[in-house]
């Protein structure tokens, strides 16, 4: 497994279930999964119910350590924001009050979209009857030269409901 350009490999127990990940350079454990019941890994859903033995929260694609308050690896989709790398555009820059429980973004329908679609990564805007991502909306509406705050105000009027 490779993340952040570092090689990790897994260690398995006799039942072939993965029990830990080790850093390929230092051979230190980067994540450890232990059993709750005999020979059963307690995989949990994306909402991250706590793992009883190791205090790791296991989601489908990565583990979260509540001890250190960090994910142990990077999101495999990678973080994606707008042209200034703001990571909260998917909640209109208001992560304390707004959520995106469904990952409610759609494939960008702008043929010239440089990112080739941003499923689940940004809010989507309806321009000329098409659903397009934030960067494309900024370009198509011609508000590239406006300040970030002004762009947000204008884009809210084109946001899909």
């Amino acid at each position, binding site marked *: 497994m490779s993340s952040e350009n570092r090689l990790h490999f897994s260690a398995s127990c006799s039942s072939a279930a993965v029990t830990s990940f080790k850093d390929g350079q230092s051979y230190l454990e980067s994540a450890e999964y232990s059993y709750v019941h005999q020979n059963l890994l307690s995989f949990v859903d994306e909402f991250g119910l706590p793992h009883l033995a190791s205090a790791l929260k296991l989601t489908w694609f990565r583990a979260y350590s509540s001890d250190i308050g960090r994910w142990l690896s990077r999101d495999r989709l990678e973080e994606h924001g707008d042209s200034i790398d703001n990571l909260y555009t998917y*909640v*209109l820059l*208001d992560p304390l009050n*707004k959520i995106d429980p469904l990952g*409610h973004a759609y494939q960008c329908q*702008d043929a010239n979209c440089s990112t080739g679609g941003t499923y689940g990564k940004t*809010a989507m805007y*309806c*321009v*000329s*009857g*098409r659903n*397009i991502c934030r960067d*494309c909306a900024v370009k*198509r*509406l*011609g*508000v590239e030269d*406006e300040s970030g705050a*002004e762009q947000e*105000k*204008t884009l*809210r*009027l*084109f*946001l*899909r*409901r």
Partner: protein
Amino acid sequence: MVEKDGDKNISDRALMEKIKLLEVFDIFHAESQNGASLICIVVGVDSRKIYARRITTQENCIFDRETGLADAAPGESEAIIKSVSPLPIEIYQTMIGLDRRYRLGGKSLGDAKLTDNEKKALLFIDEFYSN
């Protein structure tokens, strides 16, 4: 300023009364649960519903005349009328022009570009309805 519940109920009641006065070509402001801001123009009214078009996206929306609520189609979020305050006449005219351009003009993404006047009007509207 903290708004007391009683004051809020009064202002809600006043808004509901004003919603019933909406007529064709009036412009009003609604907000959806996901934070989208809807500037809508009334295209029809009957005893129970307000038929409106969202100017910027040209979506059709149907609002309940009693509650100000718009039903959500699958994949959409509910919206509710927040204000029916009349816009200044020059802003109103710019919005009517934008509606006409988006409705009758070209439908390609290249035709969506906003003019300076339209940009100013949209920024004004955001400020106007957030007060």
